[in-house]
Structures are given as C-alpha cells and as structure tokens.
C-alpha cells in the first residue's frame, strides 16, 4: 500500500491553474483517483463544476486525454470511448492498456444522468464512474438535486415559514448502482485520502464497470469557511451521515465504524443551508434526520453482518 507521500509525488494529471473555489474538495478527489491508476486514463466529464473550472478555452488543466460533451451523458460517452478502444485493439491500432473514467457531479448522476449511467452499467462496459457529490446543483448556485439531504435549504426548495427545506431524503445512489450487479461500488469522501485511493484502485482493477460516490463538501453553497472542507468531510463520516463502505461483488463492507457516533448537529452546525434547522420550531427536523441516519446505519450494519449480496 502506498503512503500519502507516494500518492502526492505521482505526476499530476490535473494540474494547478484551474479556477476552483478556494477550499473546494474536487481537485484532491480527482487527483487521488487519477493517482490510483497504473495505466493511462481517458476521461469523460459531465458538464459541472469540474468541467467549467478546468477547461476555460484556450487553457486546460488536464494532462490526460479528456472530453466533455454535455451534462447527462458521460457514462454514454465513456461507453463510446470503450467501444473505440476495443475496436482499435481488435484491429491492431493500439497495444497499450488504458483505464476509462467517467466523472459527474450529483445532478449529472443522480438526476439527469441516471439513465445513461444505468444503461452503461447494465451493458457492462469496462469503466469507472465517479460522482463528486456536493449534494446539489452547486455550479449553478445551490439548486436541489436527488442527492440533496432532507432539511437542506436550496434556491429551488428554500426554507421558509411553510418549508423546512427539502422534505425528502436523498436517493441511495450506491445501492441503485450496486443493483446492476456490477463488481465494485463504493462510497468515499475527500478527507480519507488512503481510503479513496484504495477504492479507486479497486474500481480501476474491477472486472467490469465500477462506481465511486465521493462526498465533496461545497464551501460556496453549503456556505462555510473555506478552511473547513476537510472538517465537514470528517464530520459527515463521524456522524454516520455519509458512511464509508464498499459493495464488492454485491457484498457490503463498512470501512469505518465510529467508536461513538457524533450527533448530527455537529455536522449541520455552521452550514448556512441548515441554519434554519436550529430555530426552535424546526427541532423536529433534526430529530427526524437523526432517526433516519441511525436507522440507515443499523440497516447497513445488518447487511454487512448477514453477508447477503445486494
């Protein structure tokens, strides 16, 4: 297993000079994942934060072959690249092995891109799909997505006198993906570099499609101090809000179990999107959130214990 030093000393495929917000977690996520590949990586990237800040023409931050088409279809684009690769291999036009990586934000994955993703997983293309999940349409200014958590205030479902913010819990994208019976799916986060690295390695080396959902706290629209991204990532894990686990050939393995899980308030505190929950009349929302988190944690513990394949 490499050390952190090994990971950071690999040549950067995503180089500096991009225009991400100060404190944004996307670059460390992508750099860690790219460092985990032992082959050249070809990237298909959905429209979103990562795409717009890295390729403002005539500049590019990418030292790897990289392509953007539209918002919802990086899985389909990756499928096309994979087919081209197979055709080239068959026809003797390439002898190198490559890894193909599709990247999207949560809007382009949970919502508008879920069909292209599902199709590509079902067809079994050899590629890895990564969602950097900042729990909303953050590039366009904090609109609600299928990944936005219960109780969060967004510009499309704001909190107000008659609204607690988003009234639904987010989709379970990892289990939706795992239901395609792919060899590897995992949930990771930005501050756990080695955990993310190992998961990316497993994903790249999987015998078929693989999937990583990586939590990416958004300094701009969760609205906290840019120095605190790693802290919020850690709190998301320590409160069981974002459990670190993987589904290998259908079997769940939890990678981190907090000795004592922290109350969800610790994660919510200081984020403007949850500020309204601390008003006395919204106390029930936090209790409900806590109940859902604990119930979900108990469920995945049971899944892990049972060794039943999902």
């Amino acid at each position, binding site marked *: 297993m490499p050390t952190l030093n090994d990971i950071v000393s690999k040549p950067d495929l995503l180089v500096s000079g991009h225009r991400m917000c100060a404190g944004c977690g996307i670059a460390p996520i992508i750099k860690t994942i790219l460092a985990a590949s032992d082959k*050249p990586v*070809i990237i*298909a990237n959905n429209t979103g934060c990562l*795409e*717009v800040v890295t*390729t*403002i*023409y*005539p500049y*590019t931050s*990418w*030292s*790897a*072959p*990289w*392509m*953007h*088409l*539209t918002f*919802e*279809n990086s*899985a*389909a*684009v*990756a*499928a*096309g*690249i994979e*087919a*081209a*690769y*197979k*055709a*080239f291999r*068959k*026809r003797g*036009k*390439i002898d*190198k092995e*490559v890894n193909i990586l599709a990247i999207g934000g949560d809007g382009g994955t949970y919502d508008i891109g879920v*069909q*292209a993703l*599902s*199709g590509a997983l*079902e*067809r079994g293309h050899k590629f890895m799909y990564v969602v950097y999940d900042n729990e909303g349409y953050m590039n366009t200014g904090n609109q609600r997505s299928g990944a936005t958590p219960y109780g969060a205030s967004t510009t499309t479902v704001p909190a107000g006198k008659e609204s607690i913010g988003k009234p639904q819990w987010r989709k379970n994208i990892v289990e939706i993906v795992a239901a395609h019976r792919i060899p590897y799916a995992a949930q990771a986060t930005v501050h756990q570099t080695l955990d993310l690295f190992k998961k990316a390695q497993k994903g790249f080396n999987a015998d078929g499609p693989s999937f990583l959902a990586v939590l990416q706290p958004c300094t701009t629209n969760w609205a906290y101090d840019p120095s605190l991204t790693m802290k919020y990532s850690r709190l998301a894990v320590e409160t069981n809000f974002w459990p670190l686990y993987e589904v290998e050939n259908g079997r769940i393995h939890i990678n981190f179990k907090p000795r004592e899980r922290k109350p969800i308030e610790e994660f919510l505190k200081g984020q403007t999107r949850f500020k309204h929950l601390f008003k006395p009349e919204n106390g029930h929302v936090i209790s409900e959130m806590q109940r859902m988190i604990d119930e979900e944690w108990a469920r995945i513990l049971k899944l892990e214990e049972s060794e039943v394949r999902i």
Partner: protein
Amino acid sequence: MSIVKSLTGAQAAAEAMRQINPDVVVAYPITPQTPIVEYFAEFVANGIVNTETIPVESEHSALSAAVGASAAGARAMCATSSQGLALMWEIVAATPGLRLPIVMPLVNRALSAPINIHCDHSDVMGTLTLGWIQIFCENAQEAYEHMLLALRLAEDERVLLPVMVNQDGFITSHAVEPVKIYDDETIKKFIGERKLNRYLLDVDHPFTVGPLALTDYYFEIKKQQEDAIYAAKSVYLEIGKELSSITGKGYPYFEEYKASDAEAIIITLNSTAGTVKDVVDEMRNEGKRVGMIKPILFRPFPYAEVREALKNVSSVGVFDRSIAFGAYAPLYSEVRNALYDLPKKPKIQSYIYGLGGRDIFKSEIRFSFNELLDGKVDPNIQNYLGLRG
C-alpha cells in the same frame, strides 16, 4: 464490378455500412425506429464485419456514445429517425461544434404530436441550423451511394463535420428496389482509413475535447465551423468526381430533370422527385415545357447554382413535406432566397404536401404544373396538396 441486389432503402444504407466496416456502430430502437442498424447487427452477428456495436438505452445516449467513440479516434456511426433525432437534438447540436465526422443515416418521418410513424421531413428540417451537412436521397440506390460519399466528405480534413444522409420513411426505407452494389474492394479503397490528427486514444499526446469557450472565443470557433461547411461545397464535388469513376454517375448539388428549357419547374426533395419525373415525362409528351429540380446537397445550400438554374424559368413551384409554422416552408424559403439576386425573377409558389405520410398523386403534381404554366402563382398564398376540408 458490381452486383444488383433487391434491397430496401434501409438495407441499402446498411450495405454501405457493411462496406465501410466502421469501428463503432451505436443503436437504439426508438418509435418509430429504423431497421438500418438491425440489418447491420446481422452483419456483426455473422462476422461479415468486425465492428464494435453498442446497443444503448436511448437515442440521446446513441449519439453521445458515437461522439465519444469518434473523439476517441474511431469511425463511428449511428442511425435514427423522427423522435430519435428530436431526443438527440442536444448532441446533434454539439457534434459539429466538436468537428467530429460522424455519418448518420436519417429516415425522415413525422414528428409528434400527434404521433405518426410515416414519411415527412419535419424531423430533419428542425435541425438545419445546427451545422450538419445534409444530403437527400431519392431512392435506395442514392441512399447507398450517398452514404459512401458522405463518409469521405465528413472525414476530409478541410471539412471535419458530421453528415446526415436522408431517405424517406417507408417509401424508401421499407420498399424493395434493385440496388447496384459496387465491388467491396473498390469501395474499401475509395473509403480508405480515417486520417487522425488528435484523438483521445492517442494517450501519449493528451488533448482536451469540448472545453468551455466564453465570450472571448466562442464566436471565432463558430465562424471556423461555418467556414468548414462552406468548404464542404467544393469538396463534395471533388469526392463526387472520384466516386463517379467507380459508378459512372454524376454527383451534382441537385438533379435537373428536363429543366434546361422548362417554363415551369417543380422543386422537391427525396422520393417525391421520382413521381414528379413521371409527370414531367407525361406532360412533355403533351408538348408542355415542364421540368424538375431535386436538391441533393441541402446544407451547405447551393444558392448561386440554384439561382443560375432557375434564371430563365417562368414559374417555380416548391414542394415541401413539412411546415415551418408561422414562416415560409423550409425548402420554399431557400429557393425564394436564392432567387432574390436575379434581375428578372421567376414567379414562385409554395406547396405543402404529404405530411404524416399522406400519399401524393400524379394528378396533384399535374395540377400544380398547370397552375404554374397558367401563371396562377401567388407567392403570398400557401398552397396545400391533398389536404381535406
């Protein structure tokens, strides 16, 4: 060497694809779906071609995957029709912007609503501003040959743009005709290999495809795209000449049928041209000076050449198989534009016909020719053929 096969238009397009043997073909069967990729899938299943196929989950993903494959360096194709083209519209717009030489046969059919699966040109006409080269085919033979020409045109380094090769839904796509298929080796030589400068699979030379270009560059990039589609005009003739040496036929911008001395001319696209030619023959036998023009290369539109061809004609009738709702019909609009610079303009009249697959009859074409010959022409009246009530 060539052999004559009994083929539908869809099979003829698939035959061209067989000879091209693309690296990647992507398929999705939307309603109304086209059998082109099914015929092609049989070639794959039987080892006649060694293409990688991707049976995707939507038409949007179909063109997306073809674009990914093409950017990766592959010769990539897909086929569609009607609703499928409508669903892939976002990617239809992006493909020429990325300068990817994808050839896509399009079986022209009506757009919903109401849902209708029959021949109509509403599907393609809605995409004319997006930057694809558009080629229209009268019959299965043309559908076959124009696929071959289209591939060379798309991939020419002076062009690098996608091409749609249009044929009429059912009338051409599902009707069996004798089609002359030229010798595989000769065609393979004509087709050649795709020349690649920069492509994603060239991992030693990474490059970025599809960046964000803002107010400082977008405009210039779009101008280059426009220059490329205008450049396609002369390249089309050049490649057409090369194809002529195999087929013995010409590949003009438009077909002129008994047009040189005609008083009245009807201009129409695709399969209707065959019926109009029949009527021209009949009326010529009666001593009437009528003729026909059938546009083949529709984007880029050959304005100057159309103007030249019509300069001595008294009356022109333009037949459109689609409506532009609130504007002049698409083909009429182009022809009318082409005539603007003539000092002595022919009279011109618009006829809409055949929407949703309604048949057009020789009697209706004859009726139109007679109107044109009698000078009963009013550019401000929209005429409809075969419309009840």
